[in-house]
């Protein structure tokens, strides 16, 4: 009998869960270290050792929490879509696990971006929320994460849930450019001035540095959470599979 293992290759060897478990166990401490270090430095520079904005005063410090969260939210969705694609096309078991693990993390980052943005909006715009194109599109992104999580939970059959969710993530990608261009289609009343003012190269390096450090910290945190959740998901599936085998093997 031939081995049921489909033909190998680098990615498939990586996709072997045992190898993944070893690799991730090795990677984990480093990632944790980077996370802690960057958060420490970033928060020190961001909250203490950086200049305040002459208009926004101390509220500008929300930026160091808010902007990386927004970046990570979008990165998470890309991860979701890519892992969905790989899971569907090459039937990589680990890609499916990665998707399942990413979605809640992405939802949390998106929520964080929304939450910190709202907190920031109150002092700067005088309102928690406006129906600006960018804000709206992030809210939609949040709902897309929720939709992904929901469809994963909606089936009794795990494999079916994974395939449906992967397909949804891919279909959802179509909406990313739409979200991007919605700024042009939907003439918004409240274009946040502070965003354009601070964006790009015009930013003070004293503010840019902590921002970048925080971005690295967020990214490392994302890695830590992703690996943790993937390991958890792998274990959960193993338990489920063993239970299933027991139900199948039980003879009267």
């Amino acid at each position, binding site marked *: *009998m*031939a*081995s*049921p*293992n*489909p033909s190998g290759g680098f990615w498939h060897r990586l*996709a*072997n*869960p*045992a190898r993944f478990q070893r690799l991730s166990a090795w990677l984990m401490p480093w990632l944790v270290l980077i996370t802690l270090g960057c958060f420490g430095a970033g928060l020190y520079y961001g909250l203490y050792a950086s200049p305040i904005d002459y208009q926004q005063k101390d509220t500008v410090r929300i930026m160091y929490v808010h902007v990386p969260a927004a970046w990570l939210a979008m990165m998470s969705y890309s991860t979701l879509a890519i892992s969905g694609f790989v899971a569907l096309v090459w039937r990589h*078991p*680990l890609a*499916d*696990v990665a998707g399942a693990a990413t979605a809640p993390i992405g939802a949390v980052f998106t929520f964080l971006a929304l939450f910190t943005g709202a907190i920031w909006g109150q002092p700067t715009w005088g309102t928690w929320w406006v129906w600006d194109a960018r804000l709206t599109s992030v809210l939609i992104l949040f709902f897309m994460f929720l939709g992904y999580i929901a469809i994963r939970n909606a089936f009794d*059959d*795990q*494999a079916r849930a994974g395939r449906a969710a992967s397909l949804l993530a891919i279909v959802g990608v179509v909406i990313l450019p739409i979200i991007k261009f919605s700024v042009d289609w939907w003439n918004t009343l409240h274009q946040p001035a502070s965003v354009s003012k601070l964006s790009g190269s015009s930013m003070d390096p004293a503010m840019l540095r902590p921002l970048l450090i925080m971005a690295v910290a967020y990214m490392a945190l994302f890695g830590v959470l992703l690996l943790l959740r993937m390991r958890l998901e*792998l274990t959960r*599936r*193993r338990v*489920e*599979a*063993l239970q*299933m*085998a027991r139900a*199948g093997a039980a003879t009267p």
Partner: protein
Amino acid sequence: MPILDVQDLACRRGGRILFAGLDFSLSEGDAALALGRNGAGKSSLLRVLAGLIPPFTGSIRWNGEDVRREPYEFRSAMRYVGHADGLQTNLTVIQNLHYWAALYRASTSRDALEQALAAVGLDELADLPARMLSAGQRRRLALARPIATQPGGLWLLDEPTVALDRPSIVKIEAAITAFRAGGGIVIASTNAPLTLPNAQEIDVAAAIPSPEDAFGDAFEDALL
């Protein structure tokens, strides 16, 4: 030369290998019975053969062509009758059959359809809404589908005689015999009584591999 040639077929569902290393081949007029206890994987085998589930490993060839690479010819020749009857309960018996015939590019003339209904003993009920049929009558209507749409080729019948009483079983067996006489191939799974003369037996249960064989090196993979 065999028309249908199955090599080293394995199926994985719900994180479990149901069967592996299944080989068999069938020529014109042959028949095969899939046997095994509840949950052994008989239905899964038929679904894999039909092309509804991709095989985990192995190949299925029809007239020498891999059916996954060249599905059109195989699909034109193959008819599958699953657990579900596939009836639209708001349409009449003959309207249901009409749709299937159109879908499978067969003759949709009233005569042809009524002939198929007669073969399963439903000709008198042709204009009744399908929702008024009893379980056995529904099953018979589902079995009229391959009869009405099939010029020759392959029938995959999953528990064809479930819910049927004795006289109906005899009718179905006669239809199968006529189909085989015309060069057709039949693969059926069954727990209920069904006699197929000279049928090859495929013991799905026997093909359930021991855990080590099933998973081998890929134990971790297979669990996913």
